[in-house]
């Protein structure tokens, strides 16, 4: 008799637990204001990333096509996986001395792990995080970027 009674109480509690779960899903079904899904490709116009978002490493240039990079190569040493290559050039100064400047700041986005050590270690704050995150390309070589723009030069007041 006891097990017979238990059989029915078990069924009762089983149905009750299933209904409790369905109550939750039902509640969300009828409260569309709780939906948090973002319609990503459609909202591209209004989508704004957080200020500190790490999209890629970029080198800001001012309106005279000038940047702050001295070509010291500290970021290259700080990078744990060789994502940055610095090619230096020598120029003749008016006083006859030779000076190192940056020739190419090569950044391999495909190898970058976004650790931020390069940006933190740069003494002249020449590189910062960019907000771009749509990095998908068809050819991997497109992910190797040269950060200093062609014909750019260093801002005058930066001293090494």
């Amino acid at each position: 008799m006891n097990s017979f009674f238990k059989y029915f109480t078990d069924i009762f509690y089983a149905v009750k637990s299933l209904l409790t779960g369905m109550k939750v899903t039902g509640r969300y079904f009828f409260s569309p204001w709780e939906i948090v899904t973002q319609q990503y490709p459609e909202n591209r116009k209004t989508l704004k990333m957080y200020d500190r978002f790490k999209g890629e490493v970029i080198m800001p240039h001012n309106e005279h096509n000038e940047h702050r990079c001295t070509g010291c190569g500290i970021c290259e040493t700080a990078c744990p996986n060789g994502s940055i290559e610095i090619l230096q050039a020598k120029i003749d100064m008016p006083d006859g001395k030779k000076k190192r400047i940056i020739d190419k700041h090569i950044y391999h986005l495909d190898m970058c792990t976004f650790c931020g050590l390069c940006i933190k270690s740069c003494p002249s704050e020449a590189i910062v995080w960019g907000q771009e995150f749509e990095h998908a390309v068809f050819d991997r070589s497109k992910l190797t970027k040269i950060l200093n723009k062609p014909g750019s030069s260093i801002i005058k007041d930066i001293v090494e």
Partner: protein
Amino acid sequence: MKEIINLPVKNVEEEEYHINMGPQHPSTHGVLRLVVSLQGEIVKSLKPHCGYIHRGIEKMCEKDTYPQIIHLTDRMDYLSAHINNHAVCMLVEKALEVEVPERVTYIRTIIDELNRIASHQLWWCSFGMDMGGLTCFFYGLRDREKILDIFEESFGSRLLHSYYTPGGLMMDIHPDFQKNVKAFIKYFRKKIKDYDDLLTGNIIMQLRTKGVGILTKEDAISYGVTGPSGRASGFACDVRKHHPYGVYDKTEFKEILGTKGDTFERYMMRMHEMLESMKIIEQLIDNIPAGDYKAKMKAVIKLPAGEYFQRVEAARGELGVYVVSDGNKSPYRMKFRSPNFSNLSVLDHISRGCKIADLVAIGGSLDYVIPDIDR
């Protein structure tokens, strides 16, 4: 008339056969291969084959400097990335006898706990999915998103942050950090009731987990099963309680211990732990002292020659970092004692005699992250 040939009939019931579970199987949560030996659908024994995602992190550390090692530890147990970073940072700070500012220890403790909640939320999602409840997956991820937003706002990334550096933090927390964390706690306290309604009380889940995969306290200790899985068996192994670091000694929280050690108990441990983590955060979030966000460190960090060890409580158990230094700027040898590896080793022991469907439940409740096993 055709002659009836009597083929010798083998008793298939008694024959043992092997199947491969993984490396591409949704319920192994990664590239883990289990060679399961079955009789009928009873698991006789099982052999885990790891190494599919071995990247040689320990070897790579030997050529990296200490600040560079941080970003590799993110990629071991990626769901408790901050906690892994914390272990290496504390090891370096201890070896150099650097006093980190109080602000840093507070922030680190809060973020560790947020990370623990996020990790348990994702575990809850995938455990529900292993049990066949796909709804859980969406609700869990919805709430985890709130934590990831807080992370993204403060440190720019969602999963692999590399936010701690030896001696402090990469940058200060975002001005809105405290406000957002408090809003999250308020939100999640409400939503965690849904979790209980959806899965904890569910009859299917209860019947599939209660009394399944029992791990005794003695076995938990001898296999070195730590974290929520070990505590479910009554093994008091919470590093935060027994060897406090950060500001855990100033906070009040309970180390919840189970008694039965079955799959359901392991499930409940994590549900309780989320509540405890919220309690810790609530005690700290208003009291973050002002100050600097990093201590003064030398530009090149060199540990004095010797051996160092540091352990922390990661989301899945005890993570130990062991370094042998010869006085250079990178370690001579680095070894991680990862919680998931020990937790995996017990899988064969506790799943013998279970049905193969129960193996999925047991695996889900041990909550392993494969990159941490292989490293």
